[in-house]
């Protein structure tokens, strides 16, 4: 394998793909979104809820390539139990990372294992795969009326 493809498929990504964290639908989700990547047929459904103490809960189910499924696993790890502000930070940082063309130095404090996706941003065809669960999360929380702008304060 070339160094490029190894940077795309970092060990952390392969590990999340083979051993997904937090997979499964969220019972009693207040918002849910099913997103598909029509060019390749990847799909993911994300459910989200906000508890009374202001913490986010998330669940997901999907099928697709290693990048999309590992991304869902990392998203779940970052968002499950997070405060609204932390979820907002992670969401923004991940989207920004995917638009970095692979030149970013992502903050592990914010993105955790998500930093491993830096190599994905070099492959335009795979960015959509990585963003798919995050797009589903965004849509699900909007349906649930969870607005992250208010969490900035």
């Amino acid at each position, binding site marked *: 394998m*070339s160094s490029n493809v190894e940077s795309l498929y970092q060990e952390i990504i392969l590990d999340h793909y083979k051993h997904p964290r937090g997979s499964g639908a969220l019972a009693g989700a207040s918002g849910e979104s099913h997103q598909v990547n029509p*060019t390749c*047929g*990847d*799909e993911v459904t994300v459910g989200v809820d906000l508890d009374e103490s202001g913490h986010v809960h998330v669940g997901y189910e999907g*099928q*697709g*390539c*290693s990048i999309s499924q590992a991304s869902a696993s990392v998203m779940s790890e970052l968002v499950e139990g997070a405060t609204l502000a932390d979820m907002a930070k992670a969401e923004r940082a991940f989207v920004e990372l995917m638009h970095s063309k692979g030149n970013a130095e992502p903050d592990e404090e914010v993105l955790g294992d998500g930093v491993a996706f830096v190599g994905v941003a070099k492959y335009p065809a795979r960015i959509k795969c990585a963003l798919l669960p995050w797009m589903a999360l965004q849509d699900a929380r909007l349906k649930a009326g969870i607005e992250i702008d208010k969490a900035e304060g």
Partner: protein
Amino acid sequence: MAARLDVPRIRKDFPILARTVRDDRPLVYLDSAATSQKPTAVLDAERAFYETSNAAVHRGAHQLAEEATDAYEDARSAIAGFVGARSEDIVFTKNATEGLNLAAYAFSNGTDKSRQGHSIDPRFVVGPGDSIVVTEMEHHANLIPWQELCAKTGAELRWIGVDDDGRLRREDFGLIDATTKAVSVVHQSNILGTLNPVEEIMAQARSVGAVGIVDACQSIPHMSVDVVDLGADLVAWSGHKMLGPTGIGLLWGRTEILEAMPPFLTGGSMIETVFMESSTFAPPPQKFEAGVPMVAQAVGLGAAVRYLEDVGMASIADHEHELTGYALAQLSQLPGVRIIGPTDNVDRGSAISFVVDGLHPHDVGQVLDDRGVAVRVGHHCAWPTCRRFAVPATTRLSTYLYNDTTDIDAAVEGIVAAQEFFGVA
């Protein structure tokens, strides 16, 4: 047996095949079912047209306009000759998708105009109680236009199913019955590779008075096809899959059908007389060629069919048949690899789809790409066909006259490397 292809010599005619990709790896191009590469003769023809004769065709009385019109119509003749047709029965479209939409819109436009009291050939008037028949292996381009027609008119969409081997279910041919107004079928599947018995299906369409349409995108580039012999009323295909430029497709129609069909796109060039209240239309093929057409692309495509004729379609078909047999054998012996589509090298083309246990096609394609091997991954615009085989997507390799067994070997080595990398070997 036709003359064997000299692949190394042919490859020299395709400049792009000499380039490298992904850190200086030689390009192994196995995605010709998506689009073919272009020989120098095609590139030169297009450039020469722009350099010497560029003008709008079928209008203007100056010398360049005459030369451009001649070049455009010469290309039409060359293409017509290539498929055994009369020039007047060949319509230039933007692509095959437009050709198939042109066919479907003949029915919806015909139905609308008939409702307004216009005199329309009854074959192009559909409604509740009528049916349209397609197959479960259609490209979206030959499915969605008919879905839309049914949604607009209340006609019923029926489809001939696909069996586990990737062949059409003959027992479903009976779906073509007295209610059927159109039968639109793919000649060779872009995802499964299956070559369908379209002559038989078109004969059945004819026997019930239905208009028969064939999507020949994957057959005409790879084998000798006489469009008249297919027994269809309309045959659509694309230019860019047969060494021609993008932006040009073809629709052949029986003279009588083209005359009876209502037009699709309207405007300049397709008229006979125009008044403020209404207009009359030019005879085919101009009736279906509104606006300034794709002249340089037509010239390029004319050069492409001359190139194919020089090499010889029988030789190309033999070569690809042999290559397909080799690829099927190589893939079949790989553990964990399952071919989606016919596994026997009979009545099938060179597009071979497969899935690898434990690996998503995107990941297989990525590892192949890293090794310089270009294949297609995804649902290949045939999502219902993927569903039929309960796979989200496939990896597809497809060949052409410039491929040989070393390309297949590179793909096979790449599949094994992907299995090892992801630990599923």
